[in-house]
């Protein structure tokens, strides 16, 4: 479905952020994209949803293909209409608007009123808490509720591919679990999901396939379960060590032994 091939993105015409990134999101799957700060995760999302312009970025090489169509340089509105919607990092709900109005902005590209009403009911089913707060100003919702609103808003355009950029950011562990279950539910309704996360445990536990990004390149990819078992992933992302999986004390870390490179 979504295919990113050898994508290169340059900011301000000098800063090379993505250097030949290739990712694939098959229909109906959850794919996780992991990486540390500055690895290029958010840039990847911007490239897919056409928002590079806003940040003076440009895709200089490679291509993004969606359902066989090249969308590398498409406009954001065209991309949303074609069925890809993103939930932005940091929620970015319209704080001055009410919950209902926020959802209405999400359905902006849908002309058909019956379809909008259908999407609205679906969002209300998924997030009963939003139904209670329909007329409230979005800025007064809690962080978890705002994240739900952001996901709900994205679902209003009835997307085929939902891109979630760090949905766990700044949320309590219990809420992260709740969001994770919701993502699984949404996926079960037939929406493919590209999940961008720093919380590797959460992402890999629900994803089918995972990619690990470092300095603008995929350094490792494979089935999510396999990645979870991988020694490097465990050490670098999950803070676990060895077969036992017990927590590691930094006192025992011998620096010369720490590997600096990925073996893949």
């Amino acid at each position: 479905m979504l295919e990113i091939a050898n994508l290169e993105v340059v900011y301000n015409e000098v800063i090379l952020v993505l250097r030949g990134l290739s990712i694939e999101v098959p229909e109906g799957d959850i794919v996780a994209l992991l990486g540390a700060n500055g690895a290029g995760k958010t840039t990847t999302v911007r490239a897919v949803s056409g928002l590079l312009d806003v940040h003076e970025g440009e895709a200089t090489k490679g291509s993004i293909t969606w359902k066989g169509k090249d969308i590398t340089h498409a406009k954001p509105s065209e991309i949303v209409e074609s069925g890809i919607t993103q939930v932005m990092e940091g929620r970015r709900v319209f704080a001055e608007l009410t919950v209902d109005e926020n959802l209405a902005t999400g359905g902006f590209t849908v002309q058909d009123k019956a379809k909008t009403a259908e999407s609205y009911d679906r969002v209300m089913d998924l997030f009963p808490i939003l139904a209670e707060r329909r007329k409230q100003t979005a800025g007064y919702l809690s962080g978890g509720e705002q994240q739900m609103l952001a996901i709900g808003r994205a679902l209003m355009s009835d997307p085929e591919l939902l891109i979630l950029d760090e949905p766990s950011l700044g949320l309590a562990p219990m809420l992260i679990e709740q969001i994770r279950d919701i993502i699984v539910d949404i996926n079960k309704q037939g929406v493919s999901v590209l999940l961008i996360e720093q919380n590797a445990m959460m992402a890999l536990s629900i994803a089918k396939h995972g990619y690990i990004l470092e300095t603008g390149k995929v350094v490792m990819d494979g089935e999510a379960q396999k990645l979870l078992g991988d020694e490097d992933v465990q050490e670098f992302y999950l803070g676990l060590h060895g077969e036992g999986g017990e927590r590691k004390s930094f006192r025992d870390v011998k620096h010369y032994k720490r590997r600096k490179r990925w073996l893949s």
Partner: protein
Amino acid sequence: MNNFLLKLRQEPALMFLFGVMVPITVFLAMQLFNDPEIFFATLMRSLGMGSTYAIVALGFVLIFKATQTVNFAQGALAVSGALFLSFAVADDHIPLTTIDNPINSLPGPDWFHWGVSLVLAMVFAAILGLVIERLTIRPMVGQPLFSVAVITLGLEIALRVFNNDTVKVEFRNVKVPWGIDGFQVGKETINYSIIAAMVTAAIAFVAVFIFYRSRLGIAMRAVAFDQEAAMAQGINVGRVFAIAWAAGAVLAMIGGVFATQPPVKQSLAVDNETANIAFRALPAVILGGLDSATGALLGGLIVGAAEIFAGQYAAGETDILGAGYPVIVPYVVMMIGLLIRPYGLFGTPEIRRV
């Protein structure tokens, strides 16, 4: 009470406000009992003035809300629109040609002709707004707001020069159907144009509040709040800008028409000075808060009332104040307002660059 007095002493602006407002209120109450007819007529004129300011202010607010830019070209847009109306309604020929003005050959009474011309002028103003937005504002998206504001200032001058030298503005009548007539309240005359301004302002504001609840209106508010997030929802930001500019230009045109009518002016004709209505309405916009429609309405009414009441009741003091003093009253009111609430009465408390 003690707390209140303490706060008063700490806030010179508040102290000033109370020091001035209390005597003014007492004075006005005395005038009301003294001569209710004059008071009523003044009140009506102040409402007419305030409505005119509010209409122009609303144009500023719509454009600012969507694009975060103060459009300094509102004045020139007002003149251009009113001029077009005047060409449509008062000329025998289409300008620069010998073709007969088609509106004159329409059946029906004069007010119908005027209505058709008004609709045409609104369409013309909207197109003018769209063209300006497309040519000069859209390429500047993402550039410093200061540059965009200066571009609108340049537009104002360019359009004014064009109107003055190429179109040759010389007291062109806009031929409003109600003319200079009015009805009598005792020995005071109240012009119909005052009623027209009030009705128009009411319609404009109801329309804007309904628009804010509509699909496009919600999109516009979303764009105003967070452009990038709005784009991520598939909202076409360029289209929102275009709509704001079209609506802003139409409101400027209507404001321009009322700027030729009492109580703003008695001439009933457009000339280059009509453009000043935008700068006279600027205190209303700033006092109300640049991004609030409610603020534009209230700011317009407050500023209009201050100007007219000062003009009526301080007229004996022209030796000290100077003959044209009512015109600066709005700026004084704005200054005091800003000292108390730096972001306007209803503005978003956030630093905005103008």
